[in-house]
């Protein structure tokens, strides 16, 4: 059995998050072959690999969103009916899978460049402009069109190797080619969404300066449209936690397809206590990047010191991703004269440190379901984390959770609040162990990696079995 795994902008070129999830999943299923499709913004070199591919990854295909190389010349050749279907698809009026088949068919569409040079395209874009009644600069509208649909056409016009089940780790472009592969190869499609793609794009678009204000809404609708196509085509729409499932339903995912499969972690029984500090030891397992809001930790440390507590704060994690930001944080530590209280360890083996922590901290501005928290919980450490993503669910437990909280959630960017919670832990050392236990119990029951892997293996097998039996091939309807 071969599963196609689609990673948009992540595995194997980025570490952490979705990448490590995919890597763990593939590593955990030695009996299943994987075809890996990675969507990258531009060409990638092998030297940029952050993970070496596993033995059961039998095929790895990189697809760039756009290429610099002009593609071969194929004239656009569309019938009236096809054009009117495209009109509806481009204006988000239909999710008809036939539209994807046309977009991916170079004989009909023409190559990307040729299509954008064709008169049918010009007619189409004028009709859409009038239909949408936006009345901004037509040149900007045109640019928007080209930048929206160039990647779409380019991605759909690739050849994708044959697989039995296709699994995408996001909607967006990943979801788009997942849907397409599913339609063309007539195989089931599974989505696991970690963050909610269209919401993330929405934030980016609203903050962007290169999109004219009048066209921002259309960009947002475009990404919603892509998500909706994927939700429509998929058999399973999986996410990590309840809040995200709510968003998916809101964005049009059919409820009966949705499921929650949280992240999982191995319970490491061989943890040893190393580097125990003589004082209260606070640990943070984070990459040094702005979205983790390292500065809030530093300010909180400053407050604690002002209050007269003795403690040590270790920040574990790579500082190579954004060296300027890392430098800013280090400078801040120096200027607050906190060098004795706060240390940056750089990238280290987290397992060596976990048991030495009295409490763990996460100050992210945005999260999905952070593995860091699960790791800490598996090592029975209590937590203070910001209320983003599924942090609250992890720390306080879902509804009807029998185990009890393993720490506190606080609003993001609140150094005083963070300091206050840490002070509470320092004042109640007797409760540290009990809270840590709560977390460990929850992990054991709800967040075991073996459960996650078993779930996906079963799902692949179940969906894969159905190929060619109950399904009507969409490609044959046309």
């Amino acid at each position, binding site marked *: 059995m071969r599963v196609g795994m689609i990673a948009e902008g992540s595995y194997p070129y980025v570490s952490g998050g979705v990448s490590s999830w995919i890597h763990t999943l593939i590593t955990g299923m030695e009996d299943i072959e994987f075809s890996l499709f990675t969507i990258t913004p531009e060409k990638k070199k092998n030297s940029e690999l952050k993970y070496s591919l596993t033995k059961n990854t039998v095929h790895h295909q990189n697809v760039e969103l756009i290429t610099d190389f*002009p593609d071969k010349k194929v004239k656009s050749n569309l019938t009236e009916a096809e054009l009117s279907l495209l009109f509806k698809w481009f204006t988000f009026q239909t999710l008809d899978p036939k539209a994807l088949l046309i977009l991916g068919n170079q004989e009909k569409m023409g190559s990307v*460049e040729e299509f*954008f*040079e*064709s*008169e049918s*395209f*010009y007619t189409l874009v*004028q009709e859409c*402009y*009038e239909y949408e009644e936006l*009345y*901004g*600069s*037509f*040149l*900007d*509208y*045109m640019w928007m069109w080209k930048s929206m649909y160039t990647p779409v056409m380019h991605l759909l016009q690739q050849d994708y190797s044959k697989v039995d089940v296709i699994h995408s780790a996001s909607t967006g472009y990943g979801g788009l080619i997942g849907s397409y592969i599913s339609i063309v190869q007539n195989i089931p499609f599974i989505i696991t969404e970690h963050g909610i793609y269209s919401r993330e794009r929405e934030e980016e678009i609203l903050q962007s300066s290169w999109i004219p204000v009048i066209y921002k809404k259309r960009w947002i609708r475009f990404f919603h449209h892509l998500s909706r196509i994927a939700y429509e085509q998929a058999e399973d729409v999986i996410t990590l936690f309840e809040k995200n499932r709510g968003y998916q339903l809101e964005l049009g995912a059919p409820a009966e397809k949705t499921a929650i499969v949280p992240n999982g972690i191995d319970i490491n029984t061989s943890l040893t206590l190393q580097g125990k500090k003589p004082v209260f030891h606070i640990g943070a397992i984070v990459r040094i990047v702005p979205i983790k809001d390292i500065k809030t930790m530093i300010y909180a440390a400053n407050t604690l010191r002002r209050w007269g507590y003795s403690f040590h704060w270790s920040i574990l994690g790579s500082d190579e991703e954004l060296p300027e930001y890392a430098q800013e944080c280090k400078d801040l530590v120096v200027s607050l004269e906190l060098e004795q209280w706060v240390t940056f360890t750089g990238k280290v083996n987290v397992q060596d440190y976990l048991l030495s922590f009295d409490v763990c901290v996460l100050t992210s501005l945005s999260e999905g379901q952070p593995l860091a928290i699960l790791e800490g919980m598996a090592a029975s450490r209590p937590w203070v984390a910001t209320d983003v993503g599924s942090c609250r669910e992890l720390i306080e437990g879902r509804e009807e959770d029998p185990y009890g909280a393993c720490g506190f959630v606080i609003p993001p960017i609140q150094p005083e609040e963070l300091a206050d919670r840490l002070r509470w832990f320092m004042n109640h050392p007797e409760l540290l162990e009990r809270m840590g236990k709560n977390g460990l119990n929850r992990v054991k029951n709800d967040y075991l990696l073996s459960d996650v892997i078993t779930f996906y293996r079963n799902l692949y097998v179940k969906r894969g079995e159905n190929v060619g039996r109950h399904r009507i091939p969409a490609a044959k309807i046309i």
Partner: protein
Amino acid sequence: MLAGIGFQLQKLFKEDYYSSRLKAYLYSLFVTAGPWLIVIFTILMLQVLLKTVPGVNALNKQLFMISVSYCFMFSQVLFGFQQLVVTRYTADCLYEKNEEKVFSSYLGFSAVTAAAAILLWLIFALLSPLQWEYKFMMLGLFLLLNLIWIMLLYLSGAKNYQSIALAFLAGGVLSVSCMFILLKWNPFPQGEWTPAWIMMGSFTGGIAVTFLWLVNAMLKTFPNRAASMPFEYLTYFDKYPQLAFTGIFYNAGLWVSNWIIWVSGGQWLLDTFRYHPGYDTAVFYAYLTILPSYVIFVVSIETRFYERYRDFFSFINDGGTLTQIRKSKAKMLLVLKQEIERLVRNQGFISLAVLFLALFIFPLFFNADLILGIFRITLIGAFCNGMTMIMMLLLLYFDDRKGALFTSAAFFGGIALFTLLMLPAGEAAYGVGFTVGSLLSFVYSSFRLFQYVSKADYYAFCKSRHTPIEGPFHNLSRRLNRLAGAE
């Protein structure tokens, strides 16, 4: 190409009373056809003068007139080969705010042209039995003319019309007076070809004055003269080969009927030049009749039409809505149609008038029915010829390089083909090929123009802008730049 003087003219036209209107037309005539008129006038003056100077035999006169014509003709063809490409290059430099590259390209353009001119002359000189002194004199004239056309391109681009016209005026006056004085007093010992030599010398001297005057104007126009990468412009032959071919075809098309007729029905002069006295004269006068077209073109198209053209493109490039783009396109099309109609009507009227007048006036000057016959037919051809050129310029306004290429190819091919086809019909049918070919290219280019302009927005938005970034001319350009030590 001429865009730019329109703005000055608009001012003159807005005060709508006769004196200023007249001023505007005269000004247009001056700036567009000025140099050409002065050169023609000079030659006509010389012809008249020669009649009054005794002692110069017909062969001497012919040799002089034909050498000058050949220098003009071939320098135009040589220049035409690069003209459109260089124009495009300098326009791009200015658009990209690389003004300093413009003067460098002038140097490169001149060097390449001079080299080509010398090569061409060498072939001529080795084949011709003329005296070497005379041949060297011809080389001088040929080189000067080539370099002058180049400066004209740059100076008219910089809208330095006044100095252009003055330069030609000065050169013309000097040629005529010098020649008159030298022939009248004849201080040189008599020799077989002395008069031709003197005439050629005087004329070349005058042209040299024009040349120096223009050089002076060039130096004033480009105060910051850099000479880095003078041959970079050659890369545009890879990028826009159509422009080079358009230039070649158009300029060759102007002469191809003469060439064919010289070969089949012409005669030799001194085993060097082919010519056909009747046909050449008739065509020369026919071309004179379309001079007004230049003026009308500048006045009507470059003012009224150009305004609409600018509006249309500013709506496209600066963020107009679709409705604004469509409306401005409709307006532009309407004005284009009106102005072309007016151009055809006015020039048509003038040509017709000349046609009738010629019936009465021609016999007074020439006692050959043949010339009148050819003149009458080529006059219509010249009309179509002028229109073709204007359509071609308009196509290039819209960057329809393919259309311009097809037009010029049809122009050259049509004239060549029909001239050849009509050869069996003998002298009576001379000029028919020229006219039919010109008519065809005129008809084709008008269709092409309106078809293209009615989709101008589509082309503006959707046409591919990819140009090759490598090619044989890129290599050549690099090599020459290195040779010139400017890389």
